[in-house]
């Protein structure tokens, strides 16, 4: 089976005399997996995610989604949640749903409305009137209401209350098809650990570990959270 995401010697530098944000990264992510992209601040997680979505250009090397270079074709199959608010704040939630329906053929409107109802979000509310956490929930609902092949979620639970986290994580598990891959970048490892199949540890722009969660537990006798604290101890 072809990998859903592949980095070949991927390097990204933000300036000529700066340390690379990503340094010759080689990585293959397979289909049907929930993968944690983990690392301390400045390790290159968000840079990798932006490169996968064409929001940054690599300095050298490349990144392929479903064996295609990042572009319009890959945008069709990637559902991306950035770590910031990216919707037009003048829109209502209903309008944001129509926007996604207009542009993504794999968007499932009913699923979005069902999730909004479960999270008690008023679809007629204007986005700028919502709290930061609720805006994040709306964005996650929009992203998870697509039938994508790759979901790329940058800090999906960072801004929401602990009570909503369980619902969101449950949403992530239940709202993607078996062949789809979910790539989650987060600092809240303990919260997401239970849903992860694999983890990728990044440090100073380099992959220091790519292993299945089961293998980590078997070989190290530790949880991912414990291993992370050990590997990245200050």
């Amino acid at each position, binding site marked *: 089976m072809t990998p859903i995401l592949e980095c070949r010697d991927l390097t990204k530098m*933000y*300036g000529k005399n700066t340390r690379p944000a990503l340094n010759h990264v080689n990585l293959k992510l397979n289909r049907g997996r929930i993968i944690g992209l983990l690392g301390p601040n400045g390790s290159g997680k968000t840079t990798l995610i*932006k490169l996968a*979505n*064409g*929001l*940054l*250009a690599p300095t050298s090397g490349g990144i392929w989604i479903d064996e295609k270079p990042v*572009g*319009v*074709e890959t*945008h*069709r199959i*990637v559902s*991306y949640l*950035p770590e*910031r*608010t*990216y*919707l*037009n704040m*003048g829109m209502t939630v209903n309008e944001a749903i129509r*926007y996604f329906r*207009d*542009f*993504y053929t794999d968007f499932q409107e009913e699923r979005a409305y069902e999730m909004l109802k479960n999270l008690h979000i008023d679809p007629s509310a204007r986005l700028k009137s919502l709290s930061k956490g609720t805006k994040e929930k709306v964005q996650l609902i929009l992203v998870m209401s697509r039938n994508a092949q790759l979901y790329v979620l940058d800090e999906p639970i960072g801004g929401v209350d602990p009570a909503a986290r369980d619902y969101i994580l449950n949403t992530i598990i239940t709202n993607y098809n078996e062949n789809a891959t979910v790539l989650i970048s987060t600092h809240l490892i303990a919260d997401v650990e239970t849903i992860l199949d694999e983890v990728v540890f990044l440090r100073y722009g380099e992959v220091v570990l790519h292993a299945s969660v089961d293998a980590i537990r078997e070989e190290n006798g530790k949880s991912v959270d414990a291993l992370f604290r050990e590997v990245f101890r200050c």
Partner: protein
Amino acid sequence: MLGKLLKYDLKASYRYLLVCYVIYIVLTVGFVLSVKGVDVTAGVPGMILAFAFLSLTILWIGSLIALIILTYVLVIRRFYVNLVRDEGYLSLTLPVSTRMHMLSKLLSGIFFILLTGAVLVAGFMIVAAGLGGESIWEQLYQVFSDFLQTFESFYGTLFFVNGILNFIRGILLIYFSICVGQMFTKHKIWGAIGTYLGLLIVLEIFVWIASLLFGLYGGVNALVRWMYSGSTWVNTIYIIAQILVYFFLGAWILEKRANLE
């Protein structure tokens, strides 16, 4: 996809402009009424009307200038916020080519600027109708007829076509400068302003050198006509070349050199 992009681009800005159009038209009517009511020989009430006339004149002229500035600000802001700021995280990850984004922004920008132009003309018509009496319509008809007559000559038509192309070039030059500016690691807005001013200067120097070289062979008249008369084929080609470069290179930058840090 272009239709959908256009729909959202128009929806994003129309509310602000609609409010401004209404304010402008109300001030125009107020200005006309105040002019008609001014009678400085009628004592204190006349003075009050004169004061109202002065205030409304200032407000009317202010609203006219503000409307032009605001339209351009909204057109530029829409491109900037929707493609290279936070909303760009969504726009640039839609399954839509960057050429479509550029085209949609260009068409919506042209639409809003022309709409503002039409509203301004409507305001002038109100003033003309209110202050000019019956003969004003005949005079306006004459002006319009004269305008149409320019199309009877080839150079008149070309002058008009070049004017429209120049207008499109102006918008695309701003968009292109924003595309280049976003590639800067820091000070992206200054990068865009620098690109815009830099390009204007470089292009002026180019025109000056080209005109000089042209002038050596074609005389001073050819030199002047080549760039500044606005009614030559060379001018048309020169503008179209710029339009194509700004459009396609700008779209390419957004696609291959996006830098949403």
